[in-house]
């Protein structure tokens, strides 16, 4: 929610109890995700791998979540920018390790954040078929080419959590409608070329 929420750096000290750098790396990754804050599983894993209390684990996850989200929000990619976030008296080695881990992950985190930001529904699949209509209840003989187009549209992932609804809309297009559609969409393509050439 609030990308610039203050980070409780003291809580990060619990990471000093980690048995390896990989444990720290893993925790950083898990804490970034939007489901991290409610996750009992993550809380339990953190408690046991660092041998800390539930409360300490909770504060740690919260801080890591805020820190990683802050870096993704501001798109900090340079080491100095990330180091500058830490308070002066922070444990030097831990600071360097966290900075290194964060730098490695920022591009992937930004991608994830963008994929999960609010948006209109997204087209996830497109199927089509070309038919020739040969007869109907009103016309006994004809040979009319027609297209069937089916689009599968997925609702905004950020609204629906883990299982966003997918709905399908199927429509029949005449050749003329399809040509008109392509005309319109062709204009988008022209605009894109114009923008790309600037």
């Amino acid at each position, binding site marked *: 929610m609030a990308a610039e929420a203050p980070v409780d750096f003291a809580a990060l000290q619990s990471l000093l109890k980690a048995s390896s750098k990989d444990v720290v790396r893993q925790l950083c990754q898990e804490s970034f995700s939007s489901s991290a804050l409610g996750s009992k599983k993550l809380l339990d894993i953190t408690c046991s791998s660092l041998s800390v209390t539930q409360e300490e684990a909770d504060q740690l996850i919260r801080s890591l979540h805020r820190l990683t989200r802050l870096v993704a929000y501001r798109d900090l990619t340079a080491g100095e920018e990330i180091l500058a976030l830490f308070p002066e008296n922070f444990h030097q080695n831990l600071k360097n390790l966290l900075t290194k881990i964060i730098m490695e992950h920022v591009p992937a985190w930004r991608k994830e954040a963008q994929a999960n930001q609010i948006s209109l529904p997204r087209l996830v699949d497109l199927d089509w078929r070309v038919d020739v209509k040969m007869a109907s209840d009103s016309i006994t003989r004809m040979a009319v080419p027609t297209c069937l187009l089916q689009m599968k549209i997925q609702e905004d992932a950020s609204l629906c959590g883990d299982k966003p609804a997918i709905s399908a809309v*199927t429509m029949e297009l005449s050749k003329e409608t399809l040509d008109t559609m392509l005309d319109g969409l062709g204009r988008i393509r022209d605009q894109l070329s114009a923008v790309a050439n600037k």
Partner: protein
Amino acid sequence: MEREMAADSQTPVEFTMEELCQPPLEAKSEVTNKLLDLQWKMGMAVSSDNCRSLKSPYVALMLKVADQSGQITNKSFEMTIPQFQHFFKQLKEMAAVIETV
């Protein structure tokens, strides 16, 4: 059993993952919806609550679709530029095929 497509219902049909892997479309006699209108816009996402600074272009489409009874539904969705290009390419393929039929 094959799931009926949204031929006779007014609202789009929802699918589970299993159903999405079903064999292709069935066209019923009083078929399907007709496309009445297509509107589009191109935009650029510049900022969000997750990322302060973005430069992420997208294409948004709105399809106005009428079913057999005349009921009109609007379907809006957005695509990234690569997704749009793929979409456009598929429609062009369709147009090429329909020329030959």
